[in-house]
């Protein structure tokens, strides 16, 4: 060890010596400045170290002499009026690493500055293109890392429930999918880690198969504001973005745990990122989550078979050179979700008995056991991304992904035949495999113009085994888009347009022979967003666009019984595409004490597809069932999302949040069912100043009021919508700084008053109350070690 130490000392001495010499020269230089000859000139050229090509318009400076010039379009420059002696020339250019060279004057030869690309500069372009935008604007809401801390352990949809205009469509306690401005399923796109998520999203009881613990940020683009992501963003798009794999040497680790009292559940999630000094161009990440919950308790009883279990895993590798980057990512999502056994009904009489309360399932105790009925879900993603920097301000990106989605649904009862029962097969098995390829090219001109263009191709295959719900199909989609963005200090304009072709090939067996039918749709879509800052306080914006959606296999061909809803759903193969026109306004006020936001929206949907009750009911061996048929009618959806944040004295803060929606048929002005009721949220936050190692300690107390959704279509429901309800919640949290690591601890309580209530947007509102009081303890531990 001693020799190396000696070496370091020597090196240090050498460096200091050089420093002193330089200082001396400088001092001498200053003293002799007046007397020295000061009419020398130098000529230089700035070149890209990798390509050897000249780099235009680089800044060339001699800081000590306050001399500067800009190289011309061929990369050449001349500096006049130099005195003899040593000078340090700094050469800088946006997108390149700033370089310094020491030159002795006079110098007759051409000075060649070799500058290298700055990979971190393009990573910021990366983030911007994949994370949509860094800041919320018109039509965009953002949940950053800090916002996500207080909802760790919840499902993706539950995490989004505090975002204005976003609701959850639930099936019992374990299944929830996001609803944006009243629209969901195939009208809401989800992008997971830059890839369009492809599962069985058409089904209202199919929750998104995504582990939200991977997310570093979640953004929501409402309506056409997310057109870059697809022509079918009728409701909007949800972007789940993980942190970018680190590019500087060191290790980052994060551990998340949470425990819930209602369901006696636990969640453990960990993520490690590493980049090694010897292999700086390589970055790794590894992430995993395990979650297990038992039976959920309402204020009166345990709900039988409402536990769930999940095991998710992801890994990624990044390889970055100055001009190109290669990224591989793999993730797998595994979940077993118990379905409340009291929700399975044989027929309408059974449902009637449950509604009347005469046939409630026998009281159950707490258990982690997941029996029938249940869902088993697996989602696998393989992803490869390649980017190449095509010029100083342009970048080409190529993306390929394969997704495999498995959904197995187990009915309440095993078959009577023992040999079949012994197999314990699911009564329904759906498999969907998707291959997608994307190419996009981003060009920037100065700080104002951004141009992006791209194309996309998708192949998807869907098969089913067991009970018929939707037929086998293959889908071929192609599309191309252009996007232009202009911005200055006050105004930002974004316009995009796209054209997409969607061919759906349906395979069915009719009279013992395979019949196929093609449903081809193609259309264009466009969107524009304007954001304008009137002054430091007021900001206004408007977003508008036209989007469309091809009919899904279920809307065209579904034909079967829904055991949960005791209803018969029928598709209609003659249905046409749905076209949406939407308009969204935004008004933002920001002062020192107050932040307010008002976002009214209006949406006209041509041929809005929904389930219409039809007579006569269908006769089966289990009795008569009501029939619902997919039907199209023009619809108008309008509403307002509002937010107010006021800073009060004594480090207090008040937050108000309102989401209001009205949905009607455009012609006969009747209400459209299955739309969320008005929601108002209020919360008070008391911040405390940092105390020793405690950072940002706070207490939050809040309430949520959801109004009764009385605006429903007449006579198409077994039960009138449930009453309005108020829920109280509270949270106490703090960060703790321990050397290089951060610990974040919070204890929160939901449904603090143990309110008995039902929600209109829960499909199991016929069968059971919502969950009772729940306490959650969350601990997040982050450590970063740079070396």
């Amino acid at each position, binding site marked *: 060890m001693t020799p190396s130490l000696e070496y370091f000392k020597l090196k240090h001495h050498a460096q200091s010596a050089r420093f002193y010499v330089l200082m001396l020269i400088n001092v001498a230089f200053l003293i002799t400045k007046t007397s020295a000859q000061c009419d020398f000139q130098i000529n230089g050229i700035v070149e890209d170290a990798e390509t050897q090509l000249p780099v235009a318009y680089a800044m060339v400076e001699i800081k000590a002499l306050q001399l500067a010039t800009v190289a011309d379009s061929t990369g050449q420059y001349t500096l006049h009026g130099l005195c003899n002696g040593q000078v340090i020339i700094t050469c800088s250019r946006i997108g390149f690493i700033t370089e310094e060279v020491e030159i002795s004057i006079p110098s007759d030869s051409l000075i060649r500055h070799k500058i290298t690309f700055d990979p971190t500069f393009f990573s910021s372009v990366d983030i911007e293109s994949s994370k949509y935008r860094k800041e919320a604007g018109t039509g965009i809401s953002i949940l950053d890392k800090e916002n996500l801390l207080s909802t760790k352990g919840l499902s993706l949809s539950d995490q989004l429930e505090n975002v204005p205009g976003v609701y959850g469509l639930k099936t019992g306690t374990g299944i929830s999918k996001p609803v944006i401005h009243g629209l969901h399923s195939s009208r809401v796109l989800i992008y997971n880690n830059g890839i369009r998520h492809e599962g069985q999203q058409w089904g209202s009881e199919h929750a998104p198969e995504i582990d939200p613990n991977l997310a570093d940020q979640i953004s929501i683009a409402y309506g056409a504001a997310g057109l870059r992501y697809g022509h079918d963003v009728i409701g909007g798009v949800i972007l789940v973005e993980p942190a970018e794999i680190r590019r500087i040497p060191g290790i980052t680790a994060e551990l998340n745990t949470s425990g819930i009292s209602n369901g006696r559940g636990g969640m453990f999630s960990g993520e490690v990122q590493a980049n090694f000094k010897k292999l700086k161009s390589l970055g*790794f990440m590894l992430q995993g989550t395990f979650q297990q919950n038992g039976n959920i308790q309402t204020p009166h009883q345990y709900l039988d078979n409402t536990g769930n279990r999940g095991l998710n895993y992801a890994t990624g590798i990044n390889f970055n050179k100055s001009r190109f980057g290669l990224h591989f990512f793999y993730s797998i999502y595994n979940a077993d979700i118990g379905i409340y056994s009291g929700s399975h009904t044989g027929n309408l009489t059974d449902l009637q008995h449950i509604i009347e309360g005469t046939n409630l399932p026998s009281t159950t105790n707490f258990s982690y056991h997941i029996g029938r009925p249940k869902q088993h879900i697996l989602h*696998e993603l393989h992803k490869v991304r390649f980017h190449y920097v095509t010029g100083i301000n342009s970048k080409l990106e190529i993306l390929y992904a394969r997704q495999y989605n498995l959904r197995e649904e187990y009915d309440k009862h095993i078959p009577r035949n023992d040999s079949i029962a012994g197999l314990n097969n699911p009564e329904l098995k759906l498999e969907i*495999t998707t291959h997608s390829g994307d190419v996009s090219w981003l060009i920037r001109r100065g700080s104002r113009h951004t141009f992006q263009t791209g194309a996309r191709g998708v192949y998807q295959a869907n098969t089913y085994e067991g009970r018929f719900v939707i037929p086998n199909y293959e889908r071929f989609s192609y599309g191309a888009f252009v996007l232009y963005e202009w911005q200055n200090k006050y105004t930002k304009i974004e316009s995009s347009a796209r054209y997409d072709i969607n061919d759906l090939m349906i395979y069915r*067996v009719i009279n013992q022979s395979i019949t196929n039918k093609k449903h081809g749709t193609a259309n264009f879509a466009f969107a524009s967003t304007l954001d304008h800052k009137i002054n430091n306080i007021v900001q206004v914006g408007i977003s508008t666009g036209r989007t469309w959606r091809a009919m899904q296999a279920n809307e065209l061909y579904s034909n079967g019984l829904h055991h949960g809803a005791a209803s*018969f759903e029928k598709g209609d193969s003659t249905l046409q595409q749905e076209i949406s026109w939407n308009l969204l306004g935004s008004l933002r006020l920001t002062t020192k004490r107050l932040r307010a936001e008002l976002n009214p929206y209006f949406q006209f949907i041509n041929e809005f597809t929904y389930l219409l009750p039809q007579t006569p009911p269908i*006769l089966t061996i289990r009795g008569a069932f009501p029939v619902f048929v997919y039907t199209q009618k023009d619809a108008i959806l309008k509403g307002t999302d509002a937010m107010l944040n006021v800073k009060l004295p004594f480090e207090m803060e008040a937050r108000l949040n309102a989401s209001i929606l009205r949905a009607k048929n455009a012609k006969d002005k009747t209400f459209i069912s299955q739309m969320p009721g008005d929601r108002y949220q209020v919360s008070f936050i008391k911040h405390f100043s940092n105390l020793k190692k405690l950072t940002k300690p706070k207490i939050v107390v809040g309430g949520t009021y959801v109004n009764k959704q009385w605006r429903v279509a007449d006579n198409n429901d077994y039960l009138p919508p449930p009453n309005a309800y108020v829920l109280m919640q509270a949270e106490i949290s703090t960060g703790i700084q321990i050397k290089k690591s951060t610990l974040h601890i919070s204890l929160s309580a939901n449904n603090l008053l143990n309110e008995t209530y039902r929600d209109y947007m829960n499909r199991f509102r016929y069968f059971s109350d919502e969950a009772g009081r729940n306490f959650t303890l969350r601990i997040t531990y982050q450590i970063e070690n740079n070396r």
Partner: protein
Amino acid sequence: MMKKHHHQSALLILIFFFLTSISACHKDDESPETPQETPNEEEVITTCKLVFTDVSGTTIDTIAVYRDPDGDGGNAPVQFDTIHLHASTTYTTEIILLNETVSPADSISNEVLEESQDHLFCFHVVDANVSITRTDSDGTFEIGLQSEWITTTASTGTVTVTLKHQPGIKDGTCDPGDTDVEIQFPMVIVE
């Protein structure tokens, strides 16, 4: 030196995890172009037959059938008989349940008999002058595959035949469980 080893092993572990997972690949074994022949829900009940035998042997035995060969939905039932019985007669009645989506037809009533502790038939009579008694037993409670129907005077009404699936919760009453069959047969009793 220790630290250097740490780096290398960490790097190896990460590469190992990455390579093993990227090579994992779940696959769909089915091809979309070849859908399964019959959209089978395992053990569909397509057919319910009531076979009436006059105990005295004076009238001809009669059968009432509900038959929906393509199962729930699709086409309407192809046969839905009215029960025709004679007044002041005692019948023994047998219920036969079939799955005719498979060939040969599968007898569901045999499965019901095998799992008789989990099943119960219920009969609900409206306006028809008939009294129905289950005559078979699972050892503790009645089943209803076999029953006795005693008619009195001529009348017109309905009989609803219900099969309740009551795994582990059978208590002899019709309340618990889920409904597997519920058919409201029209009924005519003639002199």
